[in-house]
């Protein structure tokens, strides 16, 4: 048997990562459907958060909120925190992937080296669509109201999903770096907590001590929350949206190559 092999063309080089990433994402989504507890537990946490924040802090009013009801104030924060905590699953999922024998075969296949990571982040993006839809329903049931219009709300949801996708790449890299699911979880959690809580997600930054404000005002969770909040509650949003998008783009630009580099090295 003679085999004629030609070097991959430019089209193949561009097309391959997309094609292979989608194939791996499809595999991950089948697993998600077949092991529904993964999906259930990734929705339970955000729902618990909605309920807790709605009723524990729901009575908070005051000048800091500019007369907005707390439930309307917090919902954008809740959406964003769900996307961020959801990214922890990316680290766990990828670390779990790396321990399966399937990776051994993947390395011997003519598939894009990025596909295992992009397949995981794309699958988690799809899962986030489901989680965010569910949260929207629950939020409305608990009294959340959009002050602007459906399009701006939709734009806010897209921003949340994009941010979740960007965070997935950070945590994919962490999952690759630590290599086992337990460590991935242990490593991810303490990184997420300050990002989420030292932000404008649940309380106005102005109420924090000065040194913390410096951090809270200059990190991606706040940037995304501010953009989504402005989209949903009203006000000029364009520059905030661009800032949030810049964070997303910057994060992916740094962590996607880093994660793929780690994948190439890890055996």
């Amino acid at each position, binding site marked *: 048997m003679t085999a004629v092999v030609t070097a991959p063309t430019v089209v193949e080089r561009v097309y391959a990562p997309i094609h292979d990433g989608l194939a791996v994402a499809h595999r991950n989504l089948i*697993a998600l459907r077949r092991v529904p507890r993964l999906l259930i537990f990734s929705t339970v946490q955000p729902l618990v958060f909605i309920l807790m924040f709605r009723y524990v802090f729901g009575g908070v009013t005051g000048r800091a909120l500019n007369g907005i009801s707390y439930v309307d104030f917090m919902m954008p924060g809740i959406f964003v925190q769900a996307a961020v905590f959801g990214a922890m699953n990316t680290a766990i999922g990828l670390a779990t992937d790396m321990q399966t*024998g399937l990776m051994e075969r993947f390395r011997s296949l003519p598939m894009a080296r990025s596909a295992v990571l992009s397949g995981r982040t794309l699958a988690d993006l799809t899962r986030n669509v489901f989680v965010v839809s569910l949260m929207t329903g629950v939020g409305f049931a608990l009294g959340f109201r959009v002050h602007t219009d459906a399009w701006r709300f939709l734009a806010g949801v897209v921003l949340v999903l994009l941010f979740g996708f960007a965070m997935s790449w950070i945590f994919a890299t962490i999952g690759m770096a630590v290599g086992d699911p337990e460590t991935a979880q242990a490593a991810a959690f303490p990184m997420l907590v300050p990002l989420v809580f030292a932000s404008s997600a649940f309380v106005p930054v102005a109420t924090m001590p000065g040194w913390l404000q410096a951090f809270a005002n200059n990190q991606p969770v706040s940037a995304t929350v501010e953009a989504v909040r402005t989209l949903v509650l009203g006000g000029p949003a364009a520059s905030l949206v661009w800032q949030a998008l810049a964070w997303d783009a910057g994060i992916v630009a740094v962590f996607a190559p880093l994660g793929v580099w780690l994948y190439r090295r890890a*055996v």
Partner: protein
Amino acid sequence: MHDAPAIAVSGLTKRFGDVTALGGIDFEVPQGTVFGLLGPNGAGKTTAIRILTTIIRPSSGRAEVLGHDVAEEPATVRRLIGLAGQNAAVDPNLTARENLRLIGRLTRLPARRLDPRAAELLEQFDLVAAADRPVRTYSGGMRRRLDVAAALVSEPPVLFLDEPTTGLDPQSRGALWELIRQLLREGTTVLLTTQYLEEADRLANRVAVIDEGRIIADDAPGVLKERLGQTVIELDMGDEARAAEAATLITTRLQRAPGREGPLLRLAAPDGSMLLMDVMHALEGDGMVPRTIAVRESSLDDVFLALTGHRTEDTP
């Protein structure tokens, strides 16, 4: 490229920290043949396969598949090979069909070929009945068969099988052997590792015996046997005490000490039938009648013993 050997390995080494998994191996596999890599646990078989399938890089030396260097042109090599590794590399949450389709997509099979190819392989590997069940519900042998099937999805010209029949029942093993012979007729080159000596003997055109990261023999199985082979006589004396007694008798009367293993005595000689008569004579007078007598041509197991001074650890 057409005349390049399917696999060419020279001076290949691999170190993991202090461990030298491969201490410089050389071999060549012509296209359309089966090459057997035979060795005990830890010999370096899997390491050699992982280098040849671009999973890990060699520490030094060269390895080529159909003329393409595995370290320099891994992307090209990956399009020429199929791998069934030592551990089942299939997704437990997917069905067999979904697993095969996934591999098909990742090896760039045209979309319209995905379903027919999966169906063909499910048929060939006797997995039709379980095809649409998640693989986590499979038995070890079924998983193993799926794993080998997955290696064949893209109909690669060079196939690597790392202990392909480990964990298979005799029937599945026979079926896999038949399949390998079929692939061979179609021109595929196969490199397989095994601890089952019988397997290398039956399938391979050429066998390399590997021990502690070095190739200690490389020849046609028949030649190996001829070079080192003898007729082996095995006497089962029933129990250890009788075996010891018989061993003493044989030693004093024939001036040669049989090998002893529990109740078994083992002797080997180029002229087996003569030896057998002598042994019977030596034991006759004292009523030391063996329970059973086995006379056989030396197997690769015996070859291994002769080459290394120790037996392979796992024989079927």
